[in-house]
């Protein structure tokens, strides 16, 4: 009885004493077994029979609160009693209902709901509660009760038959709150998707939900519930499209709403149509097809909105796909046939008017329908392709032919769903011959547009089996060769290259035998007139032709059989240039290297190609470069272009791309050959090894820069290998590289040596060995840097920068020491500028070393990490620096921020903005530019931190629009343009000022500046204006 008196006390304090905390104490009592729920009911006796509704309510509330915590442990018996109790209470005063509903909600979560109770609960609810007169929270409670029961008692609920649907329809009829609507739509969705009986209430259920369609909901500003229009649209769509039984109501509604003036309603209707076709059959659609087609056609013919057009076309595809799925009965008409006849009737004739606007929307509609299924595409192609072929031959104007060809292109590229199945042939195979003739005739036309589109059609034809016969492939190769030689129009060149690339991949042998020899012939053909006799223009155009041939060779090179033909030709160009043929300019040699790199990058990864590069390309390139260097040292000898920095720099990526893709065994061999070549002068693997010995490449000799700069090729080999490849003689290599990089007077050489050193450091496993290499290096660098009179400070700085980069990206603990050293150089009179620029390198991806393609150890987050660890130093350095030294800090900062990922920029912005604004007022144009380029992306998607700074930003940017530097004016105008996208309330106060200030820029002396000013000012005019 002690328990009982405690319980009575709790009840008393809760009911009369209004102490809410007693509820959880009571619940704890029940949970710990101190007393049972039924004892609680008993103890509540007095309050429950009180004449005061308020007291009764308080009593029920206590019970419900306890149940919310203890429903899981109730016995079946207890549940039965409680359900009966609550059902009874539903008839009580309306003020009590909220608590009753809470109790029922708790009970419906109970796992041991005895049979029959859920039906009983529902009957009472539907009978005794008028849901829509309840408050928002209670209505939500009712929906949750239904949802709970639907989860656990589906069979029983279904036993209610259509009464359940009727009860629900009555309950939700008139609901207006978006949160509750989401619940109600969920219930309705369950009803239609889980097979509840709708009986004679199908239309009622449709009505009570479809009255919200299309959803028009704007969440209140700073809505705490976060419900979006999209949430409501999608959950309602799930209901409306959930059953074909709604078809007869939904389709007319869609036809009506597609015609709405509101774009979002249009889109919603079209997307709903697309969604419902997945469940519908031809029978559901039949009656409405004409109406639906009329709406879709109208939208595509007349709309000015890309979104509406795309949604209409998707709906047409979906509709056609639905009709294509329907099984055909011999006795009934084929719905697909009938529908496509309708589409063809309305669209086909517009294809015969290639000048007029509707040719485009008509073609898009036909293509959308054809894309639905193989059957649909077959029918449409059968009707449209002959028509287009005929039109093309009767129309003679280029513009008309171009349009027709472009429409053809749309039909030649098959959609995923209309691809032929097994045993089916391409829908175009009947037109193979005329289509090929059409394309080849268009390729022979002089019109640019026609040639471009014809190349694209050719590409598409080639990609479908059976549409290009072997003789067509040869003809295609001839045409493409001719175009490469003749055509200098950039658009055609790029289309021809794309086509050659695609077709050579599919038909390598034909291209290797037909096209490559012709290109080679052209590359090495001697000019008709001697060089001194030809005009500069002629020379230039010959160069351009050769460059196109070289580029074409590269794009075609993916299959081994092509690569083995093309790469030697490119090598031959280099050796011919080296031999002094005079045929090729420096520019051509460089672009040949680029082409060779492309070959190395896109060649199919086979053992065969790997061996080819390993055996032939890499040794020959090294050999050529070495010959060039040695030849150049001889007095009076002709200088080979291969000693030029531009050429070497272009060779590096060729080598490193090739090496980075070698299989491990060949990689190891290449690495050891390269190392012994550079350390020991071992030339045995080079093709023509008539080199003087002993050959010293890395030793510092002031006259030997031609040799020492070859260290870049060493870097290309050893720094691009996978980390698992062992580099032999690594310690000697480090020593010699350090020596060269610290003492060479030749900038290209010492920079390449520093990069090579850094590239190796990056991949070495951490540990004492690496630490001692670094320690020795640091000591040397520090002593050079600390000695103001040293003539090798720049060299030491370069090595420092690259090694800092190498360590930073792999999170090596020593990296901080090195980057701190860089910071300490920011006030350095001699090196400040280089140090500030260095931060750009530190955080960017170099093209030739220390990147992921070279298998470098690069941690994803290194930039963020660097910023987090160092921003404070930078800020502090800036604020404490003398006026004259501040620009260095600003430049470093601006570089660093510029390379930060967007997300980090955003979070750091509050701290950064004042400094960035300061940087904008720096007199250094490079700092201004760098800062503007880092601000621009931030402004495109502005964070809240920007708000207090907008004023200052606008002022600074406006000032820069009158900068003497054109690039600064352009960049500042772009930022101002971006600012116009900020939320209106933030920028409206500046509208007049910006528009006035930009009027000056409209009269800028430079056209490129005016262009930016026009765009920015145009946008600012729209701020706060209708029609934005």
């Amino acid at each position, binding site marked *: 009885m002690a328990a009982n008196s405690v319980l009575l006390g709790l009840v008393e304090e809760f009911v009369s004493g209004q102490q809410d905390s007693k509820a959880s104490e009571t619940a704890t009592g029940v949970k710990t077994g101190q007393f049972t729920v039924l004892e609680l009911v008993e103890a509540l006796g007095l309050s429950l029979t009180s004449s005061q509704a308020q007291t009764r309510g308080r009593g029920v509330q206590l019970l419900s609160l306890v149940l919310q915590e203890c429903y899981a442990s109730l016995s079946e018996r207890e549940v039965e009693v409680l359900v009966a109790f609550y059902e009874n209470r539903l008839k009580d005063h309306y003020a009590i209902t909220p608590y009753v509903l809470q109790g029922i909600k708790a009970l419906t979560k109970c796992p041991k709901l005895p049979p029959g109770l859920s039906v009983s609960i529902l009957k009472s609810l539907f009978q005794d509660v008028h849901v829509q007169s309840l408050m928002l929270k209670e209505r939500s409670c009712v929906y949750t009760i239904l949802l709970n029961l639907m989860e656990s008692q589906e069979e029983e609920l279904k036993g209610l038959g259509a009464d359940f649907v009727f009860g629900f329809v009555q309950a939700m009829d008139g609901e207006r709150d978006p949160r509750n609507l989401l619940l109600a739509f969920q219930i309705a969705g369950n009803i239609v998707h889980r097979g509840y009986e709708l009986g004679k209430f199908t239309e009622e259920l449709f009505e009570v939900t479809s009255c919200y369609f299309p959803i028009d909901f704007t969440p209140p500003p700073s809505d705490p519930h976060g419900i979006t229009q999209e949430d409501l649209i999608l959950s309602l769509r799930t209901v409306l499209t959930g059953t074909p039984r709604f078809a007869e109501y939904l389709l007319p509604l869609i036809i009506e709403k597609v015609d709405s003036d509101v774009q979002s309603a249009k889109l919603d209707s079209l997307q709903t149509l697309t969604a419902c076709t997945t469940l519908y059959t031809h029978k559901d659609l039949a009656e409405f097809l004409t109406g639906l087609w009329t709406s879709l056609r109208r939208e595509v013919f007349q709309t000015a909105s890309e979104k509406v057009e795309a949604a209409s076309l998707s709906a047409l595809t979906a509709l056609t796909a639905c009709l294509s799925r329907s099984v055909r009965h011999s006795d009934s008409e084929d719905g697909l046939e009938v529908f496509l006849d309708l589409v063809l009737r309305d669209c086909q004739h517009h294809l015969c008017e290639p000048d007029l606007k509707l040719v485009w929307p008509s073609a898009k509609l036909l293509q959308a329908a054809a894309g639905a299924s193989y059957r649909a595409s077959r029918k449409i192609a059968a009707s449209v392709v002959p028509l287009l072929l005929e039109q093309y031959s009767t129309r003679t104007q280029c513009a008309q032919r171009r349009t027709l060809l472009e429409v053809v292109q749309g039909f030649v590229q098959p959609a995923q769903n209309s691809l032929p199945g097994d045993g089916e042939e391409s829908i175009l195979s009947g037109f193979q011959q005329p289509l090929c003739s059409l394309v080849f005739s268009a390729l022979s036309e002089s019109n640019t547009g026609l040639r471009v589109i014809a190349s694209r059609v050719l590409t598409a034809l080639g990609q479908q089996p059976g549409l290009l016969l072997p003789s067509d492939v040869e003809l295609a190769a001839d045409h493409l060769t001719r175009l490469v030689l003749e055509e200098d129009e950039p658009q055609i060149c790029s289309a021809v290259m794309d086509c050659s690339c695609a077709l050579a991949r599919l038909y390598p042998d034909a291209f290797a035998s037909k096209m490559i020899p012709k290109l080679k012939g052209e590359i090495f053909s001697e000019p008709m007139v001697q060089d001194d006799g030809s005009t500069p223009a002629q020379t230039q155009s010959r160069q351009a032709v050769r460059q196109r041939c070289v580029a074409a060779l590269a794009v075609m090179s993916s299959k081994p059989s092509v690569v083995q033909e093309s790469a030697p030709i490119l090598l031959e160009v280099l050796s011919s240039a080296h031999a002094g043929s005079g045929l090729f300019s420096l520019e051509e040699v460089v672009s040949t290297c680029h082409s060779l790199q492309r070959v190395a990058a896109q060649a199919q990864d086979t053992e065969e190609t790997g061996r080819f590069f390993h055996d032939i390309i890499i040794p020959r390139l090294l050999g050529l470069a070495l010959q060039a260097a040695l030849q150049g040292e001889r007095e009076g000898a002709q200088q080979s272009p291969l000693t030029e920095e531009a050429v070497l720099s272009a060779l590096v990526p060729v080598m490193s791309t090739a090496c980075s893709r070698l299989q491990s065994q060949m990689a190891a061999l290449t690495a050891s050959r390269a190392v012994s070549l550079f350390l020991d002068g071992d030339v045995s693997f080079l093709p023509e090894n008539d080199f003087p010995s002993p050959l010293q490449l890395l030793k510092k000799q002031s006259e030997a820069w031609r040799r020492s700069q070859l260290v870049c090729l060493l870097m290309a080999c050893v720094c691009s290998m996978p980390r698992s490849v062992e580099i032999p003689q690594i310690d000697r290599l480090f020593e010699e590289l350090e020596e060269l990089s610290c003492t060479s007077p030749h900038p290209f050489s010492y920079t390449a040596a520093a990069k090579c050193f850094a590239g190796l450091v990056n991949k070495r496993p951490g540990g004492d060995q690496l630490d001692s290499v670094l320690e020795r290096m640091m000591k040397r660098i520090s002593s050079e840097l600390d000695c103001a009179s040293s003539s090798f400070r720049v060299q030491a700085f370069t090595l420092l920068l690259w090694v800092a980069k190498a360590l930073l990206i792999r999170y090596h603990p020593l990296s901080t020491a090195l980057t701190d050293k860089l910071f300490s150089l920011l006030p350095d009179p001699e090196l400040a500028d280089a140090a500030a620029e260095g931060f750009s390198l530190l955080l960017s991806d170099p093209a030739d070393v220390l990147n992921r393609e070279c298998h470098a150890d690069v941690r994803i987050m290194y930039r963020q990490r660097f910023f987090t660890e160092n921003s404070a130093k930078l800020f502090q350095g800036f604020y404490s620096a003398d006026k004259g030294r501040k620009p260095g800090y600003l430049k470093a900062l601006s570089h660093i921020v510029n390379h930060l990922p967007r997300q980090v920029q955003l979070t750091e912005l509050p701290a950064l903005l004042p400094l960035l604004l300061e940087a904008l007022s720096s007199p250094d144009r490079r700092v201004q530019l760098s800062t503007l380029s880092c601000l621009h992306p931030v402004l495109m998607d502005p964070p809240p931190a920007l708000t207090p700074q907008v004023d200052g930003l606008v002022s600074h940017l406006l000032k820069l629009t009158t900068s003497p530097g054109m690039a600064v004016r352009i960049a500042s105008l772009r930022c101002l343009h971006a600012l116009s996208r900020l939320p209106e309330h933030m920028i409206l106060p500046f509208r*007049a*000022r910006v*528009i*006035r200030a930009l009027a000056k820029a409209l009269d800028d002396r430079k056209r490129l500046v005016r262009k930016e000013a026009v765009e920015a000012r145009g946008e600012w005019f729209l701020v706060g204006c209708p029609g934005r």
Partner: protein
Amino acid sequence: MNILHKFSAHPDTRCWYVAWNPTGTLLASCGGDRAIRIWAREGDSWECRFVLPEGHQRTIRKVAWSPCGNYLASASFDATTCIWGKKGDDFECLTVLEGHENEVKCVSWAPSGSLLATCSRDKSVWVWEVDEEDEYECVSVVNAHTQDVKHVVWHPTKELLASASYDNTVRLYKEEDDDWVCKATLEGHTATVWSLAFDSSGQRLASCSDDRTVKIWKECHPEDEQGEGRASTDPEWKCVCTLSGFHSRTVYDVAWCQQTGLLATACADDGVRVFKEDSNSDCHQTIFSLSVHIPKAHNQDVNCVAWHPKEAGLLASCSDDGEIAIWSYQSET
């Protein structure tokens, strides 16, 4: 002609119109910024003395002082006309005259101060009567023009009203049997007539137009030669002079100095011009010659010119660039 002052009156927008108060101590301006500002000379500069509270929703096209100088009327594209009066140290809106269907283009007080005229794009001219309690009542709506009416102006002494329109004509109105009726239509311009000005006697009327000319019209009584004509015959207005070839774009405004008889024009070619009547011009053959031409008086179109009512030769002008300029004209020596 010398420039005395130039100041930005309606920055970021255009200044449509300026008007001197009858004593010439204040200059009111209005513009595309929906603002009315009242300027006064303070020592060597011009200061904004009053900014009228926001009374209009759209551009304020014109302002007009009442003959007593105590009221200011403003015509706005928001289809209303406001009457402003001085209350303490500020101006406040006393009455809003509503009725026009769309943009009110002009407002003008009759010399007595008891009549007010407004005109609008709705093609109508309205005449309002002001009683002692300062209540305004529309007494007549005249739909004589076939297109929007750009300007209305009263005769300097009589109750005669003139209007200019997009329909290329000028019309004159008089009260007849409690209603205002069109008594004369002046045809001759080949494009929109933008503005009008009477000379001090009221016998001549100048009009300016998009056809790049200014015309002078003279009141002629048919019986003039035979002495006093019959009162029932209305006078005819004849074009006695056309100033063409001087302006290279639309002439937006013309002003006739009541003291000196000088004629000033505001032109869309950014220029201000002053014309002087030749001494040998007679009553049938009026001859004006160009006395001064300031080609770049403003950076953009000049919208309005206004002679100072007391100080001979003092001229105000305003422009699309939002600026007001004050000029001083000295007759050539």
